[in-house]
């Protein structure tokens, strides 16, 4: 396989996309091509002084509209649909990391009363025999894993059989009776062992200047190597698919996913099914954090079984089995920073080695964040990929930035120490008003300076004693650390349907998902404001593959994409209402243009003169219509003249027990600049959640592998530590005002990832300040401090 690959580009897209390769992968999947007409329309909407949306709900702290369903148990997740005659299952996983199955003996399992069948690669129904069929919207280069396809073992825990039974306990018991004989091959699962065998990826971004030479000539130099281990997403809801056999081979599938239409295309491809014969539903998703971007193997197993038995089937993975899905790849990063004595940067080099499987090349652009975040005339990046005998790594919250910025911001802290400069002051001296990685263009908006100012003030940073080990609270050492965060304000083509009915109700629909992010709620808020209706008169449909086209929910792009998509479609509704209104005898809006009218309080009215108005109900009655349905696509043309990013400033306090090495994160302040905030309440939760993820990354999370067996040792939620309530103390989120009239009409930039970015470094830097010990491999467990 060639490793020198070019990445398809969307027309008009420039190098900012390269920061996140996944965006390109997704952009290349049939959503290609900017819709020029729509883009122009949006630009007009945005520039028109009378085109400003009347905001009654946008920006306010509305409680989630799906709250009632979630606090009463009414919200149903993938494994919770009652289906008559349902077949229960249990997955059997391989116990070797590499090799092949010589013999698989299900005879004993089949003797258990209630067992219907045991599905293996030897007796499964037909499935596609080419890689293309298995390529989903988020698939990296390579040959995707095919569940139960053949006897080859590619990773430990790989599904090799599915026991089908009338009851789940019977299936689970019988699974323990499936005997497997393997032919072992030598495996490698240790990134450090494969480091030298790693192959170079194409240059992550164009280098500038001569970083090696500038580094050599710098007054002050810092060089450090930083390690992030494998981490697993561990959403609370286990992966599950309930496939209902609708007769005639038609399937309705309740699946846990971040993209119903991605799963739809994938299932149609793998099983050569007609689009109309498959429907994917996912109205509620119990967390995913990137693990649900790609279809997971349980959906393949469930469809195989349903087709084999011509019955409805459910497959639910155990917590342990979820460790055989994707993960944040382990990575070794080397940073070199060269500076003048005044604290301005001369050179940045960022090298990374990350892990993937033997069969697919998953990687992101960890290294280029360094060249984006700070001003430096010289910068180079290098990225190598190491193949391990594991499942393919994948996106996990803040992919590339959570890890890349951890290394950079730790290194910046070390440079500040070397320069004897306050770490915040160093950031200000290296502040970049232009995106040097993207052709030295300005940002559509960048209010990071204000993040630094407000964050530092809220934290009390000016009271910091710069000397390590200088601050105490009783027997605890106290440390204060800070860091910067950055993410990209991505947006994807999307289609939104709005149906307005004469009774004053509207339904807004798109095939996106709400993985806990608050999509339902922001969709209702934006639609209510754009249509001038009360929030309670809006219903939202999502998580259904039959709805209008939506990209995957990932990369923090859904809020911007869907909210602006609603603006587009609601404008079409307004146009149609105006057309009908002009036909009303003596219409007060006879001469108005669409940009001169707004919808508010159930009326179509002139923006200049609110007395010139007609009730929507009257317009529709006169027009003899009882519903107006519009479905419009929105794409986001990029003129290449601006970089679109979100930023944050993080300040953390830790207390470290000097005898025991126990670290507590007692305070964290995150000041965020992310454009318009659509919902103050859910936005706060998004950022807070990301910050706690950063705490987990800094102190707790690590997937441990026994390299002798190539098997994960802590594949459970007790030994893989995630933060619990007692770990989380004082969290403060500040949204810094950031108006952005360039990025999109609503000025929305997305929040899902930015919350985590920078937090691990802020904590690691605080631990250094507390203890004087610089730990460069995560997580910073107490043994590393003793």
């Amino acid at each position: 396989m060639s490793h020198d690959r070019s990445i398809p580009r969307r027309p008009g897209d420039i190098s900012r996309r390269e920061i996140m390769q996944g965006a390109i992968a997704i952009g290349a999947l049939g959503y290609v091509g900017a819709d020029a007409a729509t883009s122009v329309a949006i630009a007009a909407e945005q520039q028109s002084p009378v085109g400003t949306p009347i905001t009654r709900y946008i920006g306010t702290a509305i409680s989630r509209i799906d709250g009632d369903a979630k606090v009463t148990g009414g919200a149903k997740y993938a494994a919770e649909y009652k289906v008559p005659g349902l077949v229960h299952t249990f997955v059997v996983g391989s116990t070797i990391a590499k090799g092949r199955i010589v013999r698989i003996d299900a005879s004993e399992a089949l003797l258990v009363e209630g067992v219907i069948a045991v599905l293996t690669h030897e007796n499964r129904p037909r499935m596609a025999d080419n890689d293309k069929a298995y390529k989903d919207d988020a698939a990296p280069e390579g040959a995707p894993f095919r569940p139960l396809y053949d006897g080859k073992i590619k990773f430990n825990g790989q599904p090799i059989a599915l026991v089908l039974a009338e009851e789940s306990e019977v299936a689970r018991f019988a699974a323990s009776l499936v005997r497997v004989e393997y032919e072992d091959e030598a495996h490698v699962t240790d990134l450090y062992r494969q480091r030298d065998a790693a192959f170079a990826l194409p240059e992550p971004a164009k280098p500038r200047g001569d970083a090696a030479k500038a580094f050599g000539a710098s007054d002050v130099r810092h060089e450090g190597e930083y390690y992030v281990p494998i981490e697993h997403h561990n959403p609370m809801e286990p992966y599950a698919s309930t496939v209902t056999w609708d007769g005639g081979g038609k399937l309705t599938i309740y699946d846990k996913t971040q993209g119903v239409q991605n799963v739809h295309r994938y299932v149609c491809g793998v099983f050569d099914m007609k689009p109309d014969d498959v429907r994917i539903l996912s109205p509620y998703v119990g967390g995913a954090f990137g693990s649900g971007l790609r279809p997971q193997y349980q959906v393949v197993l469930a469809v195989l079984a349903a087709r084999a038995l011509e019955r409805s089937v459910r497959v639910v993975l155990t917590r342990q089995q979820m460790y055989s899905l994707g993960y944040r790849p382990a990575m070794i990063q080397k940073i070199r920073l060269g500076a003048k004595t005044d604290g301005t940067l001369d050179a940045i080099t960022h090298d990374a080695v990350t892990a993937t499987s033997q069969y697919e090349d998953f990687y992101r652009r960890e290294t280029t964040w360094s060249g984006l975040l700070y001003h430096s005339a010289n910068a180079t990046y290098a990225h190598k990929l190491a193949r391990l005998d594991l499942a393919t790594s994948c996106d996990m919250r803040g992919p590339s930035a959570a890890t890349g910025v951890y290394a950079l911001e730790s290194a910046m802290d070390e440079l500040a120490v070397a320069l004897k400069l306050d770490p915040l002051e160093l950031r200000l001296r290296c502040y970049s008003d232009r995106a040097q990685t993207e052709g030295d263009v300005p940002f559509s908006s960048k209010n990071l300076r204000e993040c630094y100012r407000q964050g530092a003030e809220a934290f009390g940073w000016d009271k910091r004693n710069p000397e390590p080990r200088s601050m105490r609270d009783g027997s605890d050492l106290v440390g204060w650390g800070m860091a910067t965060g950055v993410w990209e304000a991505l947006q994807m083509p999307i289609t939104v349907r709005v149906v307005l009915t004469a009774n004053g109700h509207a339904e807004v629909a798109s095939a996106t998902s709400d993985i806990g992010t608050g999509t339902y709620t922001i969709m209702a808020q934006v639609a209510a404001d754009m249509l001038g209706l009360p929030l309670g008169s809006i219903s939202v449909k999502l998580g259904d593959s039959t709805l209008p086209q939506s990209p995957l929910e990932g990369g923090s792009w859904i809020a911007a994409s869907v909210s602006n998509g609603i603006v587009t479609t609601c404008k079409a509704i307004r146009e149609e209402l105006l057309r009908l209104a002009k036909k009303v005898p003596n219409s007060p809006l006879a001469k108005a243009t669409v940009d001169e009218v707004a919808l508010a309080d159930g009326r179509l009215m002139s923006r200049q003169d609110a007395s010139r108005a007609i009730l929507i109900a009257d317009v529709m009655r006169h027009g003899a219509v009882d519903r107006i349905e519009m479905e419009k696509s929105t794409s986001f043309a990029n003129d290449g003249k601006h970089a679109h990013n979100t930023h944050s400033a993080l300040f953390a306090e830790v207390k470290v027990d000097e005898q025991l090495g126990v670290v507590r994160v007692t305070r964290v302040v995150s000041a965020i600049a992310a454009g318009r905030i659509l919902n103050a309440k859910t936005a706060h939760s998004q950022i807070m959640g990301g910050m706690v993820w950063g705490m987990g990354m800094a102190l707790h999370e690590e997937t441990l592998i026994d390299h002798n067996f190539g098997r994960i040792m802590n594949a459970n939620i007790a030994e893989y530590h995630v933060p619990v309530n007692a770990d989380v103390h004082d969290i403060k989120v500040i949204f810094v005002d950031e108006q952005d009239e360039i990025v999109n009409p609503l000025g929305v930039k997305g929040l899902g990832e930015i919350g985590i970015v920078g937090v691990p470094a802020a904590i690691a830097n605080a631990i250094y300040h507390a203890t004087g010990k610089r730990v460069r491999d995560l997580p910073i467990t107490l043994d590393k401090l003793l």
Partner: protein
Amino acid sequence: MARALATTQTTLLPPGKISVELVVNGVETKFDVAPWTTLLDALRERLDLTGTKKGCDHGQCGACTVLVDGRRINSCLTLAVMKDGAKVTTIEGLATDGALHPMQQAFIDHDAFQCGYCTPGQICSAMGLIAEGKAKTPDEIREMMSGNICRCAAYPNIVAAIQQVMGAS
């Protein structure tokens, strides 16, 4: 094909079923269940009360927390047959006459959840916590709610919601 395997003669018999009586959310419920069935699976699969969630099946995450005779327990670590005669309260039993329980309302008010999957367990656990009467301070609430993992990390909001209900009672 798999269907051919279905005709295999069966000789290994799963354990026989035992009759169990539970009062679930105030309703007397009698059903037959195998001794290896957990209370969690009995609720979800036999009684169709899927509000109680399975997150790990090992008592590690707390998503399956229900109240049994007023005490919070991990229903995944309890066999249904062990609770014969017990009163079980699940998330479905908290709202009365269509009105949310104050704890449910407090969770909404404080945005004490995102994806919602751990939420029924958090709410039942919070009810148990208040009934225990041990936790008074935010630190004590945090400590005694640490058996319930929230991967979306709504923890500070969960503490705020519990404090709201404690303050009102």
